[in-house]
């Protein structure tokens, strides 16, 4: 849906976006992940046609953004970081106005879409209120409604959950997930768990460059080198550590020790084994055979935070 190739944007000597290329596929949610100032917003603004690029080109649904900007713009629904709202307008009038300028010419078609997006973004209660009276969560949803009104195949959402409370974040996240079937979505965030929860694929970007691109699962796999499970046990022999170590395929075992542990307290082990070989079955059997009570065994996925720190620190080193 979107093909970005060798895109660069320079402000004088400062390079905000440095030769990046990526694709957005149909129906997927692509997460644009990076610290503040990494060039996420700039890239999105270029695709949406608000800024021009210094170099490179972008194709949206087959149209070049420099040759056919109007075509591209009618294919994109764009929600900037700060929702572009006219505070003196009523929610309904505002969305209707957006429909007009985004090419919904016929009144009947527009009111149909209007009803649909108001329902979709749960704005029924506030549709006749002035926007300046709305809470941040509602404003964000009005912004989203604005992006959806002309039923664009592509949505570009710049930090859609920034500044919302946890409840609202869940709401917006669910809404975005629901939209993914009909629309291809490019969304940016600097909140890592959000990317792993909502996105099919993640692009990690730092200082204007793409540092990694993959599904969240694969990214985790690539960086780890081994799989880790964490087990909680009660009891068991004193030389448990050695016994686990001697099991086939186990690379490393660490026991998390806490001071002054009484005998029946939990013992925690982190056990690493070779990547891609699931040893959980054998492991649990072996542990039970030692006489310990196996209370919990859970695979440790590397969180995006860890990936992120690993990648960005590798870059600066």
């Amino acid at each position, binding site marked *: 849906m979107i093909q970005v190739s060798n895109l660069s944007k320079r402000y004088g000597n400062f390079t905000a976006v440095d030769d990046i290329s990526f694709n957005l596929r149909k129906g997927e949610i692509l997460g644009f992940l990076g610290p503040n100032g990494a060039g996420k917003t700039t890239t999105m603004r270029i695709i949406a046609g608000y*800024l021009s690029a210094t170099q490179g080109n972008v194709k949206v649904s087959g149209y070049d953004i420099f040759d056919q900007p109007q075509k591209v*713009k*009618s294919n994109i629904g764009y929600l*900037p970081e*700060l929702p*572009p709202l006219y*505070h003196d307008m009523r929610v309904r009038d505002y969305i209707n106005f957006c429909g007009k300028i*985004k*090419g919904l*010419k016929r009144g009947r078609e527009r009111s149909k879409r209007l009803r649909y997006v108001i329902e979709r973004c749960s704005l029924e209660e506030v549709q006749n209120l002035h926007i300046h009276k709305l809470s941040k969560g509602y404003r964000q949803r009005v912004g989203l409604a604005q992006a959806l009104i002309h039923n664009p195949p592509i949505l570009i959402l710049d930090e859609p959950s920034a500044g919302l409370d946890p409840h609202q974040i869940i709401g917006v996240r669910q809404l975005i997930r629901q939209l993914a079937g009909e629309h291809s979505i490019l969304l940016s965030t600097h909140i890592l768990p959000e990317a792993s929860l909502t996105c099919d694929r993640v692009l990690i970007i730092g200082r204007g460059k793409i540092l990694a691109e993959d599904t969240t699962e694969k990214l985790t796999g690539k960086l780890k080198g081994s799989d880790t499970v964490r087990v909680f046990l009660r009891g068991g022999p004193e030389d448990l550590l050695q016994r686990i170590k001697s099991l086939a395929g186990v690379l490393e075992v660490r026991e998390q020790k806490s001071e002054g542990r009484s005998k029946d307290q939990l013992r925690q082990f982190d056990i690493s084994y070779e990547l891609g070989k699931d040893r959980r079955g054998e492991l649990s059997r072996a542990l039970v055979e030692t006489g310990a009570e196996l209370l919990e065994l859970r695979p440790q996925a590397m969180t995006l935070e860890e990936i992120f720190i690993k990648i960005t620190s590798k870059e600066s080193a």
Partner: protein
Amino acid sequence: MRNIIAIFWREYKSYFVSPIAYVVIGVFLILVSNRFIYKFNDFVQMSFMSTAQAVNTQGLIPKFSINDSVIRYVFQNIRNVSLFLLPMITMRLFAEERRVGTLELLLTSPLTILQLILGKFLAAFALFLTMVLPTVSFSFYLFQYGNPDLGPILTSYAGIIFYGIAVISVGLLISSLTENQIIAGALTFGAFLFLWIVGRVGETTVTIWGKLANYLSITAHFEKFAMGIIDSRDVVFYLSLAFIGLFLTYQAIYSLRWR
């Protein structure tokens, strides 16, 4: 065309949602009609007195032109008062959109910049017309109680329209250059004052600079309209000023993409 109308309506309505429209129109009408009443009163008194004098001295009854002594004055007054009030109409047009971020919405919608500019320009112009329209009622009183010449009234309104087009496009340009309404307002006000005062300089000198200064004066070009003459030079001046204003606005908005 639909896009222009959409932009136009939103902008025009927003003038009336905020107090701007009411304040500007109210102030304008108070100042202008106040001068009209005084002038009209003076004229009536003066004609009565001189008629009475003529009757007493068996002389000729003098004829005063209501066009020259009331109407022309009132139109000059409309022109001057609107020069002070128009910055308040134009200052927010682009500055506010830039500050709030809604310009991002407009520029990422499938609109052309020209449609955007024309919609906004027409909205400000329509508000200007809304402001001037009630003064048509002055003519009603003049026709009711006097016998004015219709021609100069019509040409004066034509002059007001051309003048409004030119002044608003300059205001629109300045509004597109900054994110701050107050700065836009102050600069617009300064620019208008300059274009007014520059004519005064021209009056007293006969050098080429003096003539140029006189030519640049947005107020001086209005004089002939008020006298009932439509001079193509004045029309060309106003329209070319409007064209330059709108053209540079286009460039200013277009160049935002390169920042």
